[in-house]
């Protein structure tokens, strides 16, 4: 296996581990805020809405 392939796989593994760790942590933090009665702000919702649009655009750009 050449170095390029190893780097490619390494990058992929890092990405998968990131996904496997960061999403649950974010969900847990959000759940704790709900339980604490903390309000989700309009700004957070706006950012999430923009993030959805950006992710969709990035997918289309990658094709």
């Amino acid at each position, binding site marked *: 296996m050449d170095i390029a392939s190893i780097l*490619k796989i390494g990058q992929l593994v890092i990405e998968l581990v990131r996904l496997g*760790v960061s*999403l649950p942590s974010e*969900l*847990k933090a959000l759940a704790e805020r709900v339980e604490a009665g903390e309000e989700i702000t309009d700004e957070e919702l706006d950012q999430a809405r923009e993030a959805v649009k*950006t*992710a969709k655009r*990035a*997918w*289309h750009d990658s094709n």
Partner: protein
Amino acid sequence: MEQILEYLNEYSVEVLALLGGLYTVMRAIVLLTPTPKDDQLFKKADGYLSKILGILAKAGGLDTTQGMKKKETTKENKTIVSLLIYALIISSCVGCTSWNSIKKDPRAEVLAYSKMYEQTVTTLTKLNTQGVFSEEQKVTITALVDKGAAYLLLWHDTIETTNQRPTFADNAIYVIESLATYLVDEGTEQ
């Protein structure tokens, strides 16, 4: 012993996420090394673990078989997609306990599913730039990406105007989870 149990209870999400990450790395290393001995050993352990993950996923309300299609894919694609699916199932499952709390607040729920969509699509995009998906797979994923975004933006609009969970929220969730699970069959079928 009690302290260990208390610790596990408090940090269960982090522990499971860490185990999931380690498992993903371990699986990748075993699949990439040429030695057949570790492949066989891991395959045996993997069979049991896959069953456990499947049960956990179902317990968490994640249908890992929905929208499955049978198509021919390359071995490389199967390996990579399989890794992706394990990571997604793990991340969805360890978040199971959090979902009950999140669903109490309509604003938190749309925020959570927006994050899930964003991270899933970002990962799929990174895999796509590395040439993982076939043209046929790209068409299916694109349809789900578009539909998921349309539902989520509409969901955001409804929250803004009524602050209530819309009736189509379950359809939106179905589409978002389909993005994460539609390839399970191709990813895990050997």
